């Protein structure tokens, strides 16, 4: 039987901190980046053309799994058509 004492372990960061100064600084930097810098970068014509191309294809570059973007469904449809064609040409089995 395990006789070791059980204790609730708190992460160290719940005890140590740098203070409000660095916090306000970090928030300020984020505000400048997201409200000024990134909108300016997003307005460049080359970038807008790239986004338009990705959108047209149903691509979500931030997706972490195939179910999160429309292009996966399109590729699945193509794969299904291919499987169907193969089954028809070999005469094997049922259709979908």
């Amino acid at each position: 039987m395990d006789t070791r004492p059980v204790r609730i372990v708190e992460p160290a960061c719940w005890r140590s901190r740098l203070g409000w100064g660095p916090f306000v600084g970090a928030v300020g930097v984020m505000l400048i980046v997201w409200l000024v810098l990134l909108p300016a970068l997003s307005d460049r014509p080359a970038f807008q053309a790239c986004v338009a191309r990705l959108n047209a294809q149903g691509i979500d570059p931030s997706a972490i799994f195939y179910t999160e973007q429309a292009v996966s469904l399109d590729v699945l449809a193509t794969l299904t058509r291919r499987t169907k064609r193969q089954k028809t040409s070999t005469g094997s089995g049922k259709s979908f």
Partner: protein
Amino acid sequence: MPDPPAIDVADQPPRGWSQLWKSEDWWAVWIGFVILAVVCGVVLPSVTVDSGDAGATVKITNPFKAWVGQPTTWRHSPVEAFSNDAKPLAYRGAIGVFCLGLIAFGIGLSVMGTPFRRFAPAFLAVFILTVLAFVLAGQVWVKTHHLSYALWALLIGLIISNTIGTPAFLRPAVRTEFYIKTGLVLLGAEILFGLLLKLGVPGIFVAWVVTPVVLITTFWFGQRVLKIESKTLNITIAADMSVCGVSAAIATAAACRAKKEELTLAVGMSLAFTVVMMFVMPWFIKLVGMGQVLGGAWMGGTIDATGAVSAAGEFVGEDALKVAVAVKMIQNILIGVIAFCVAIYWVTRVERDAAGSRPSAWEIWHRFPKFVIGFVVASLVFSWLYAGYADENVARTVITGAIKKDTTSQLRGWFFCLAFVSIGLATNFRELGRYFAGGKPLILYLCGQSLNLVLTLFMAWLMFVKLFPGAMEELGR
């Protein structure tokens, strides 16, 4: 005699039948199953199919879609994330998921001993930070560069916890494992084993032979050559690099009970290298004049994240896009197998007692992360549901489209984001630095990814160029 080392309460799940309602693992399973059952119970009966000359037309009523959506993409003002011309009511998703999370996690934690009156205000605050992470990730430039919500959720939590400190009232809702495990049960429903065979032999070899070889070799390299102390860190980096990035890292880390700092490191490295690879690989493929099919298969098997693979494929060409997405999709399914095998390996081999004796079947069951059962069951049930449709186009529209893409994968994203905010809120920069000691995790990632690049290129060339030429051109058309 010195005191024996103390153990974390998190390592002491309740034994016996009470674990069914006293452990986070089982609560994650119940919450995941109830969500999946309710969504299916409402959406599936609403499906009507009209067969016509041009093919079947599917009509679906999905009342959940509007209430689970994540904040949308924005360009100039964050307000666009909640209301814009295309989606004027996008803010409803945040309201719906907050209510669902408050009720589901609140009930679970109440039964497990956390009073609801303490959880509710804490959850509200953590949820607001989660929404903020989605807003940061939704800026169109950020989104296009695959700087996903996981990164911003971690950053927001880290900034708070390491500057002003995580306020005491927030702590009842800082439940990383609970959110991750619930999200993973929902992820299980997205893994359809029927998709496996769609690519045929070449795709299976590229996605399913190279990946386990790279995973096992990288793990071995980390243990034997680099001598990384933490096996959980080693396997989490190996899985995240060889399978599919963030989602594989989450599943593997949960299966082997990796520390939150280890998951943070693995995810951070994966995101950083993904951003580089999604631009460098298409450039290199075009530079050397590599064929689109070979290039697409190479990128699909090596770039960690699904979205980045698609974007990189698009940069090369339409055929490369289709092949890359197809290979990545098949690799995505490997997550289920990897998580299950890692869980089994950990409870039977890694977590042996000090004497090294073989654990009994009961001990294995006790240690086994139960959410993996929910993950596997959800996967099998949805694979069966998908296969049950006579017309696969209808199955794809209903199961993969309406139920998963529009509903459960949105919820899963919310739960993972809650988890990453929680990780940030409970992580210390200095502790994080300790795990990076000597740069070994980075060396492991670099060596593993180099092997992955070489092996995948060789296998893609062997399969798609030498043995089955033309196998994927058909897909590319």
